[in-house]
């Protein structure tokens, strides 16, 4: 049999992905399907594997209606992700813009701002934030020192113009959680910074010659320039927040697993995953409408 060169070359692609393909089938797809099946069963660990009897949608019912914590946690995580994601995005874009400018000590400043990238995940972060809360030195404590007082007085000032109480409360919540927000923005800052530096210098020059102000430059050159990264960054933030092993839904699922309630745990994980997937899909469709791609 003689295949054309192109055909033969294409077949070699299978060779390159074959190791991964086998691996992902065994270690990813199979477990994925299995956990989906578990969620319909009364599963108990047994010698030599899992045994169980079919339970229909009972586990899903349990997760949504009977479990004392799951639904509360789910709503809490969703809410938190929804208001934190835009804030993290804005903050990281802003910080990346600052860090892309030329000033003395820039290397040091960058090193500091990327620090969360290496620490923010895992038990270290847990202990850091937990400890500070327990000794009163938590984020709330010192952000009051820095910003909340200022913010409150600003709010009081705005109150004259009838800004509602809720806005003030929201602002306070943000000020109290500034620690969590900044610490989750490390990779996003990195990505935005890279995108800003990829904007060709000629674009900036042209804008300057045309007499664009900094404001114009931001809206007409910089923002479209980082557009594609915006989507990537958004999805990253979103997924990072959802799959964070410290968030309360994840902890609940882990607790269930520790209790050997695999059916319930799988059902919970799948409900959660379905919601995440739907949210990512909808929001990326919306963002994609506004993004300008230079290639493709």
């Amino acid at each position, binding site marked *: 049999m003689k295949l054309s060169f192109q055909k033969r070359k294409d077949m070699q692609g299978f060779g390159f992905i074959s*190791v991964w393909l086998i691996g992902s089938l065994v270690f990813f797809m199979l477990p994925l399907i299995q956990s989906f099946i578990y969620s319909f069963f009364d599963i108990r660990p047994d010698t030599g594997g899992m045994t169980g009897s079919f339970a229909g949608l009972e586990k899903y019912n349990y997760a949504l209606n009977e479990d004392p914590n799951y639904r509360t946690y789910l709503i809490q995580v969703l809410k938190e992700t929804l208001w934190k994601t835009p804030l993290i995005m804005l903050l990281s874009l802003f910080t990346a813009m600052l860090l892309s400018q030329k000033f003395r000590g820039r290397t040091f*400043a960058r*090193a500091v701002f990327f620090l969360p990238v290496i620490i923010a995940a895992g038990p270290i972060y847990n202990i850091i934030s937990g400890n500070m809360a*327990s000794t009163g030195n938590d984020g709330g404590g010192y952000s009051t020192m820095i910003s909340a007082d200022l913010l409150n007085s600003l709010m009081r000032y705005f109150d004259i113009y009838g800004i509602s109480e809720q806005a003030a409360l929201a602002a306070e919540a943000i000020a109290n959680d500034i620690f969590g927000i900044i610490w989750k923005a490390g990779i996003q800052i990195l990505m935005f910074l890279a995108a800003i530096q990829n904007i060709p210098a000629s674009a900036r020059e042209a804008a300057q010659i045309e007499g664009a102000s900094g404001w114009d430059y931001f809206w007409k050159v910089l923002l479209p320039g980082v557009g594609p990264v915006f989507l990537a960054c958004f999805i990253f933030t979103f997924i990072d927040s959802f799959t964070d092993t410290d968030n309360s839904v994840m902890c609940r699922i882990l607790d269930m697993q520790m209790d050997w309630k695999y059916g319930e745990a799988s059902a919970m994980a799948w409900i959660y995953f379905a919601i995440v997937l739907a949210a990512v899909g909808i929001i990326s469709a919306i963002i994609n409408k506004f993004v300008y791609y230079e290639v493709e």
Partner: protein
Amino acid sequence: MKGFGKIIVSRQAISSAIWRIVRFLILLGLGFIIIYPLIYMISCAFRMPEDMSDPTVIWIPKHLTLSVIRETMEIMDYWKTLCRTFFLNIGCCLLQVISCAVTGYGFARFRFKGRGLLFGIVIMMILVPVQVTAIPQYMIFRHFGPFNLINNPLCMYIPAAMGCGIKSGLMIFIFRQFFRGMPAELEDAAYLDGCGAVRTFFTVMLPNARPPLLTVFLFSIVWYWNDFYVSSVFFDKNQTIALSLKNLSSLLSQTIFQGLDVSVREQVVWLEAGCLLAVMPILIMYIFLQKYFTEGIERSGLAG
């Protein structure tokens, strides 16, 4: 007219000076929030426990001591755990980088049937939380043929080698983005010179892929270092730094507090010392390799 020009120039100078000060203050403020826990860690780790409840002590401890660090090291079995974590980390990361690079190249440069569908699996790997697949994975390694691989480092190595380690999906994605952007002429030239696909990959493409290789390697080290979830599924003892840090609180209760149920508040010094010990190795690595983080991301096509 001359005077007018001067005024404009000086106004610009003033506004840029103001901007510089504002920028400095903003960066200082945000930077302080990031550095704060580190300073706090250092401040706590070297003080006697009673300094914690002394209200006159905020930053600088009255009784400097190394005993807390020493005790924490003993409880965590630090050097042994560090060694084990280190080997596990480096091994997994190297395997992961290679397997992901090969897979990413396969997806980027060959138009085989079902590529779109298979790439869907990669996207799924990015999206599906580990928790969903953790239990069945545990079962796989629990009954791995005739062997029980739980508590064996192999159950970290094997997935890493097959491109299914921690966050492998993301890494395959990064490599695919990068290789897609490489000029096709490079490959064609290699083919004309009689290189097969495998040799082309290893001698032409891989040496040119330094930026994503570095990025992925560094991130992979960080993620494996901080991971406690996957390792807590596969290991039931405190085999890695992250795991022993996670369980430090209960370990402390057992040893120093002799089984008494104490609040986290009383354990702060030891916990902070543990944090410091856990952060140190990776922090040192970061200080030396800091510039590669940025450089790699800029050129690996992750952003764009």
